[in-house]
């Protein structure tokens, strides 16, 4: 494998993606919402209604450790079990936007023929394009995680006397993020060859957020929570899934379907 080819393809795709408002628009808008609007919302409801909601959620029987009010209990629950899964959709959404543009975009704009006639091998093409989607998706997720944690801590540290972030669950979510992105990218590669354009590819791959969005609901009903063990099982599952999806996407990659 020629590393220069992989690097050239990845850089070209990233340069092209971030030169198009249809790509960088959602890439800036979604993080802005996740990193700024959500912490402010969290702080607001925890300050004004957190105790009441916590009482409803956990009932009066829940023992609140000394020194920690129900507001803090609520904000911890909200930040990890409700917002956590929402944050986990970040790598999926960003990866699907970039990967769909990278793969289906080549097909839609008919640029694939000039790329596929070059000496770049299938592995080089896929590696370059996967990196071009994975790197921005992961970096954006990290930036959003850090921003969210920083803003939430800033508003709550004086009130609760302790920093909420970082914590084990959030570290585990960060570890899960690249594998969520890889699974998404692999799905996009498989889907891109069979659809006509970028939008269809994005819509189909974005369906991957649905299983993630089930987590907040089951959390509310205390079926499960984003504990360390849950996230560890999730990581093992994602490792296997991303490996399988990437294997299939390489195995069944057919240039002719992109022409």
């Amino acid at each position, binding site marked *: 494998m*020629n590393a*220069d*080819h992989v690097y*050239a*393809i990845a850089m*070209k795709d990233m*340069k*092209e993606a971030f*030169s*198009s408002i249809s790509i960088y628009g959602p890439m800036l808008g979604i993080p802005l919402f996740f990193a700024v609007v959500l912490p402010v919302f969290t702080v607001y409801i925890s300050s004004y209604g957190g105790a009441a909601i916590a009482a409803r959620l956990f009932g009066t029987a829940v023992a609140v450790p000394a020194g920690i009010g129900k507001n803090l209990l609520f904000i911890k629950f909200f930040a990890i079990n409700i917002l956590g899964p929402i944050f986990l959709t970040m790598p999926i959404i960003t990866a699907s936007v970039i990967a769909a543009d990278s793969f289906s975009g080549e097909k839609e*704009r*008919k*640029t*694939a*023929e*000039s*790329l*596929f*006639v*070059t*000496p*770049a*091998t*299938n592995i080089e093409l896929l590696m370059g394009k996967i990196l071009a989607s994975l790197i921005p998706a992961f970096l954006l997720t990290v930036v959003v995680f850090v921003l969210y944690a920083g803003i939430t801590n800033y508003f709550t540290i004086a009130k609760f006397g302790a920093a909420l972030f970082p914590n084990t669950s959030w570290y585990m979510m960060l570890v899960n993020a690249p594998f969520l992105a890889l699974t998404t990218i692999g799905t996009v590669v498989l889907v891109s060859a069979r659809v006509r354009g970028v939008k269809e590819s994005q819509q189909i791959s974005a369906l991957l957020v649905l299983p993630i969005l089930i987590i907040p609901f089951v959390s509310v009903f205390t079926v499960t929570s984003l504990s360390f063990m849950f996230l560890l099982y999730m990581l093992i599952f994602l490792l296997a899934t991303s490996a399988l999806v990437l294997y299939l996407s390489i195995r069944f*990659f*057919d*240039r*002719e379907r992109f*022409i």
Partner: protein
Amino acid sequence: MTMLQIHLKYTYNVVQTFIKTYRAAGFATCAAFSAVFFISIPPNITCMYGDVVRALSVSKYFGSTKALSSISLRVKKGEFVLLLGPNGAGKSTLLKLVAGLYRPTSGRIFVLGSELHNNFGTKEAEIRKRISFAGENYALYDHITVMDNLLFFAKLYDIPDPSERINALLGDFGIEDLKHRRVEELSRGTKQKVAICRALLNDSDILLLDEPSAFLDPAASELLRAKLERLVREGKSIIYATQRIDELFNFKSNILLISRGRIKMKGSANSILSSIRNVDVEITTLNSVDAGAIKGNWTLKKSSGNSFVFQVKSVSTIPELISSIAASGGKILSVNYLKENIIEMMAD
């Protein structure tokens, strides 16, 4: 005689008898194997005759739609092949098959002695470095600059220090000052020039060009023609697809007339044109001429002022017609054969 010797002698006799009895069948079997061997034509044999491209009974279907039907093609080193045909004839499909972008539904294509595969290794990557392709869609990345586009492809072709070569090519086509402009900001003609520069970037042995002059201005078309002629003189092989009949005369080439996925005619421009029957020719003169009185292997179909439409029996008659008009005192301003009909006529 030991038992072993008896057994060996017996076996020898059996084999001898078998050979004698089935000698004819043996020859037939050998002949069949040889035929299969030659039909399959391994890559080294395809190179023996200096063919850089060899297509053997290639057909291509898209679903149930037939795009190409049993096409065979040979292109030698330093040969210019012009694919001429109307829209949808299969010219682009044939070029994409040669470029390795499509797989044939049946038949085989050898390029520089190898078949191009979808999933290829190092050896084929080396062959692909020697092929250039400029499709009819420019296939440039719109959101990045001209320079970034060309640098990207230069990296994939492993061209060392490509900036100088890129600047020279852009300079040749008079677009060097546009190199930092995004492709989406360029006109169709300029995009086509950039696509041609990309195809010329890697100094390849085989150049596949699909309607490269479709949107070029006359000066750029002339420049392209001169460049391609020089490349052919240097030993490069070019397959050039066009639907413009006037391009027949632009290049000294072998012409393949393609229609409905089949090769209808092969030969030089003159041999192809002389086979056409009943062509309409529009002649305009500066002065008034009694066109009806000019007799020969043609008929006057229409006249309007100093403009006349003659139907000639064959294209080779046109010079005679022009001479006759001139001889009768007509000062000829322009001669146009009605090109749009010619390809359709040839394709029938």
